């Protein structure tokens, strides 16, 4: 039993699945489940591949941090697969490869290997986005993604030339050991930051998001907004805490990018009228918040926020895309009163939205309070102010949206969600509710995650 199975099994299944169209959807459903089971069986720690000890061979790292992400990703992929298995059965193999790529991204401890998995996940993402039937916007995504990963590779190669290693842990040790001037690291770090920033939806590099998520469907919407978002956040978190040492100008630029991303993301959402657009701009802001937390060294809170956002965004995007599909339009005005016949979905949607805003009783509140406290302890008042103002704006448009969706307009809107979807959405919302009230597990994690940076060690 080895954590590498989490990557190998989806890959093997993906290779096999192209042989039978009928079997592929079932394989898609079975694989994440198998992974979830495996996740609890495999031992944690460094996983050596090919018998070559790190830093020479490629190694993976399974710790509490990656465990959280893997759990979220596999569970969400299962759920998304379950809800779309009928309609998008021809995407089964692609989703399987995507799953392998995402698991790899989370697990890998090697910078070049990260690039390879970034490409796997990226290409899978282009194809998932292709299900929107908007080739031009996907092409846009493809170009940006390709450029982004080229940037990443460029930065990585410069680092290799400087330090002669590709292993993350080895790299950081060498960086710390060599007394490098901060300016020497600006170029590689920023190139890598941009490369990942494209996928992480950070502000100036994310013009693909509008085209892709703005016309997303029940599969691609949740896939990008929750699964990909959580994965890339975690990868970012790992790099930010184990590799990037932002200083001086670079730190200023990075923080400015993130703060701008938060503020402008919310402003853009505020100025939108279409449900999917509102959600996608809001998720831009949320992604920036998560990464801002990582930049500030709040690993625990960043990670948990990423997961909570993934769950909420899954609910929000699924409901909205489903409604869009049935109504044919996602203008808020044309969806008025859609929860009238769907109380359960409506409540779940409201819970998810309120959790994103960070309102008491829901998971988002506990997290918001947690990270704001930590930021306050670091006396990071600017970040707090921006986040608070942003959440104010966010709250206003979410409330506007909720009120519209609950109370009918002139035309009656009927959307049927089906039993499976209703149950799944309700469960997701229930999770948000439970973790909003019962914060025991979070308190327990406190210690384990804080020690993560120490766990990552060659021994």
């Amino acid at each position: 039993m080895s954590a590498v199975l989490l990557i190998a099994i989806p890959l093997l299944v993906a290779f096999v699945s192209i042989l039978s169209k009928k079997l592929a959807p079932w394989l898609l459903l079975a694989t994440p489940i198998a992974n979830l089971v495996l996740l609890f069986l495999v031992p944690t720690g460094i996983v050596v591949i090919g018998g070559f000890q790190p830093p020479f061979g490629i190694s993976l790292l399974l710790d509490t941090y990656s465990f959280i992400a893997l759990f979220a990703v596999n569970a969400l992929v299962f759920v998304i697969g379950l809800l779309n298995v009928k309609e998008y059965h021809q995407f089964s193999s692609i989703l399987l490869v995507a799953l392998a790529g995402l698991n790899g991204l989370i697990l890998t401890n090697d910078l070049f290997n990260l690039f390879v998995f970034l490409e796997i996940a990226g290409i899978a993402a282009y194809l998932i986005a292709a299900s929107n039937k908007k080739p031009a916007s996907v092409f846009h995504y493809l170009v940006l993604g390709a450029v982004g990963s080229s940037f990443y590779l460029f930065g990585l190669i410069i680092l290799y030339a400087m330090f002669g290693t590709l292993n993350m842990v080895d790299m950081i040790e060498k960086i710390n050991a060599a007394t490098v001037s901060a300016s020497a690291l600006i170029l590689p770090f920023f190139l890598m930051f941009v490369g990942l920033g494209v996928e992480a939806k950070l502000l100036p590099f994310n013009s693909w998001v509008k085209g892709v998520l703005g016309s997303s469907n029940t599969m691609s919407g949740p896939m990008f907004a929750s699964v990909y978002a959580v994965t890339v956040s975690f990868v970012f978190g790992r790099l930010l805490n184990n590799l990037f040492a932002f200083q001086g100008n670079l730190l200023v630029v990075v923080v400015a990018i993130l703060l701008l991303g938060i503020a402008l993301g919310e402003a853009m959402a505020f100025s939108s009228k279409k449900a999917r657009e509102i959600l996608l701009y809001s998720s831009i802001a949320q992604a920036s918040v998560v990464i801002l937390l990582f930049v500030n060294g709040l690993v625990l809170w960043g990670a948990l926020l990423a997961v909570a956002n993934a769950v909420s965004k899954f609910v929000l995007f699924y409901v909205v895309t489903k409604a869009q599909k049935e109504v044919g339009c996602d203008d808020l005005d044309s969806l008025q009163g859609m929860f009238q016949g769907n109380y359960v979905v409506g409540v779940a949607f409201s819970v998810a939205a309120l959790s994103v805003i960070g309102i008491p009783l829901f998971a988002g509140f506990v997290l918001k309070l947690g990270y704001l406290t930590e930021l306050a302890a670091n006396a990071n008042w600017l970040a707090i102010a921006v986040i608070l103002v942003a959440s104010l704006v966010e709250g206003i448009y979410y409330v506007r949206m909720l009120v519209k969706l609950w109370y009918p307009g002139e035309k009656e809107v009927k959307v049927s969600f089906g039993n499976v979807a209703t149950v799944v959405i309700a469960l997701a919302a229930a999770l948000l509710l439970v973790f909003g009230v019962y914060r025991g597990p979070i308190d327990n994690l406190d210690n384990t995650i804080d020690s993560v940076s120490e766990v990552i060690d060659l021994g």
Partner: protein
Amino acid sequence: MKKLFAFVLTIGLGVLMIFSLRANTLFPEFGDVSIADRISALFLDKSVNGDNGDVVFGQTTDAEDGAANLVTSIVVDYRSFDTLGEVTVLFISSLGVALLLGVAGKQKRLALNFKPNFMLRVGSRALFGIILMTGVYVILHGHLTPGGGFPGGAMIASSILLLYLADDEFRTKVKGFKVLESVAGSLYVIVGLLGLVLATYFLQNFLPTGTVGDLFSAGVLPIVYVLIGLKVGSEISGIIDHFLTEGDLA
């Protein structure tokens, strides 16, 4: 005007990058690289898992890695996991091309504008064989000489491309490619899993590595390279097929 601005901007960036790298004391000057400081120093000596002493072509046996081509040793042994990922990238690209261009319903060849004459047809058949054989050779000797699964597989694909070009009516069996692709890919993963089962680690070389420089040496490396070659060949052939056929849109 806009173009000039963009030009100045990008070239300026390039110049800045060059200056930045020059000013970077840790960044080696071109050609002035000290490999001993890099992890690849041990790859060259084949002594990652313990010092092996000198590796001598045709003499050293049972090295931790038996490939004479050191690039191959990295690609399919030291960093084999990357290569698995790389194969996956190609796999998913071909899946994607099929998804995007494979229109449901009857498919027909894209008619080329020229009519190939008899000579061309016969000549290309002959050439097909030669290229195919070269491809196979390149794959099989990947661990000894330059080349390997990727260029070899691409050669196989180009030989098939030649058939497409030479004959308007020609179509291979896509289904066959698919099976080949699937089997080759699965076998790669299975080889990796065998490493996990028979030895300790995923993708570990579980066969004896033989003498450096022999054709039958380097353990699983040639096997993996053959699989990669088959997979790459079939995938690229599939991509070509999709680019050269079109659905009955009308």
